[in-house]
């Protein structure tokens, strides 16, 4: 086996699917957030893989860096939202929070 682009892409795809699964099956908002992080990582792997194996430039890496940055910002805000949700509804369970909202 000569490791190349498809392998990395496959790993990325599996990671993405797992993240998607987590997002859909988790009830806890933080669990969902973890799923999102997985998906972002999957996309980053793809960015870097393409940047390396196709383009041979660092644009993909810059993109991935931006993604990481935005993921961090997203994490900060999302966690703040979770906390606010928790404060207001007493739970981090997204479903229940939704129900309580109504």
């Amino acid at each position, binding site marked *: 086996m000569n490791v190349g682009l498809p392998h990395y892409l496959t790993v990325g795809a599996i990671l993405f*699917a797992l993240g*998607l699964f987590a997002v859909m*099956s988790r*009830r806890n908002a*933080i669990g969902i957030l973890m799923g999102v992080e997985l998906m972002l990582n999957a996309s980053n792997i793809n960015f870097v893989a393409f940047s390396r194996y196709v383009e041979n430039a660092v644009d993909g890496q810059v993109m*991935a860096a931006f993604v990481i940055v935005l993921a961090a910002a997203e994490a*900060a*805000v999302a966690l703040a939202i979770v906390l606010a949700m928790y404060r207001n509804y007493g739970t981090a369970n997204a479903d229940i929070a939704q129900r309580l909202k109504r």
Partner: protein
Amino acid sequence: MTGDLIFILLALLTLVPAVWVVLSRNLVHAGFALLFTLLGAAGLYASMAADFLAVTQLMVYIGGVLVLVLFTVMMTHVPRGRENHGLDRYVPAAVFALLVFGVLYKTITAVHWHAVTPEAEPTIARIGTKVMTDYIFPFEYVSLVLLAAMIGAALLTREYRPTDTEDAPSDAGEDAEVAS
């Protein structure tokens, strides 16, 4: 050969804990499993000669995001009762996830990639130059996003609205009933 081995190890390091992240009923465990996924991803970046990204991943994701996630978990989650996943959730999620994976995998295998494997070079200077030149506006835009995120997080986590008039009584003077 060694490269393959390293890749396989790293892929396993990424994916196996990821499964744990997804399935673990204890969110704290999931958080710690996420650590390994992120570590594995960092390893994958490094193996693809994206050293800057790998280190960034370590620093931001592991040193930052994960700590925040764990904090939040500690604050909101009590691992007393087990989280009750039901099949009602798992089945559709699994089906959909598999579907997506299938499409992706089909794409990956169907396309013939014109892949090159160039010599690895240090990336930081190139990334720096890119950011300073080509990506100058995204870069500044990012700073605005971060500012917004900061203010937003501050607003959301603020406990109370401190107003200027709110001057709480100090410890003195509150004990009128007990003071002789």
